[in-house]
């Protein structure tokens, strides 16, 4: 979506008569990108569905105060990312699971997930990604799958471009090492 398109949408959103309709357009426009971003972090479909719905509810509440200093989709990504982190932290707290075990649990879920259709190498890749620390996993997914620019990622994650680059390269190395193992 270009800036003009975004401005038109926001203008429509500010008009009370077209607010619901416009938000529906925004949901339709971004739902897939947000869903896949969340799904790669949360893995399970039902959990992803909850996180995505919460993301859009927060967007609905926050959109009247949206300052237009950032792009709408980076803003939505940011909300979705925060929701993912909150969800994973909550999962750790509720089940008293140590930090690394949530990722291990997600890795186990992946194998039995009826909504996962990856071949052996793809499954291994996903498991490799799940061995990464949370922030590194986010960076890897956003760069590798979502193909976001470092500048956009910097805006979403509030991290410098340099730190993101080194985080991504470190993640790639770890994954490649994991893939070479039996």
């Amino acid at each position: 979506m270009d800036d003009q398109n975004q401005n038109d949408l926001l203008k429509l959103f500010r008009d009370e008569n077209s607010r619901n309709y416009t938000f529906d357009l925004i949901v339709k426009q971004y739902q897939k990108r947000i869903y896949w971003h969340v799904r790669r972090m949360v893995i399970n479909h039902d959990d992803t569905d909850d996180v995505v719905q919460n993301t859009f509810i927060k967007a609905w509440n926050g959109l009247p105060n949206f300052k237009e200093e950032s792009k709408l989709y980076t803003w939505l990504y940011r909300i979705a990312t925060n929701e993912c982190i909150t969800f994973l932290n909550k999962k750790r707290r509720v089940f008293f699971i140590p930090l690394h075990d949530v990722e291990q649990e997600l890795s186990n879920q992946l194998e039995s997930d009826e909504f996962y259709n990856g071949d052996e190498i793809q499954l291994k890749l996903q498991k490799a990604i799940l061995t990464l620390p949370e922030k590194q996993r986010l960076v890897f997914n956003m760069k590798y799958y979502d193909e976001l620019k470092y500048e956009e990622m910097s805006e979403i994650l509030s991290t410098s471009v340099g730190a993101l680059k080194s985080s991504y390269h470190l993640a790639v190395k770890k994954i490649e090492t994991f893939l070479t193992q039996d």
Partner: protein
Amino acid sequence: MQNGNNIEQLKKENQFLVPANYFEELPQHIQAKRNQIKPNTVFSTNWYYKILAPTMLVITLFASYYIYQNNTTTELTAQEISEVIIDQELIQFDEEMIYEVYAETATPNQTESENEEIIDYLINDNISINLILEEL
């Protein structure tokens, strides 16, 4: 590449699936969830603060004034009380009633028993009773 260790050569396919019609139905689910949110809590933020801020200010001022009044009451003398009652015509009192109230609340300089003690003391000091009566 399907068996190497260079991820850039791996097929970048999305292997995750969603239930049938999931994306067609998701906007409706989100809308249903939005409708559960109380009305006037989403878009009235600015309006809310515009009304709330002056209201809170007025309440705070009244509360401060009330507390100030309660903490700064002065004790009036019996005479001042009677003057206030008369000036403000709160109750119709005649002068006799006011005098009675004043007499009850006013502290006499000397009591009768004190006078008798003084007279006894003067008599014991050989002062003539007639002289004492003249002085009183």
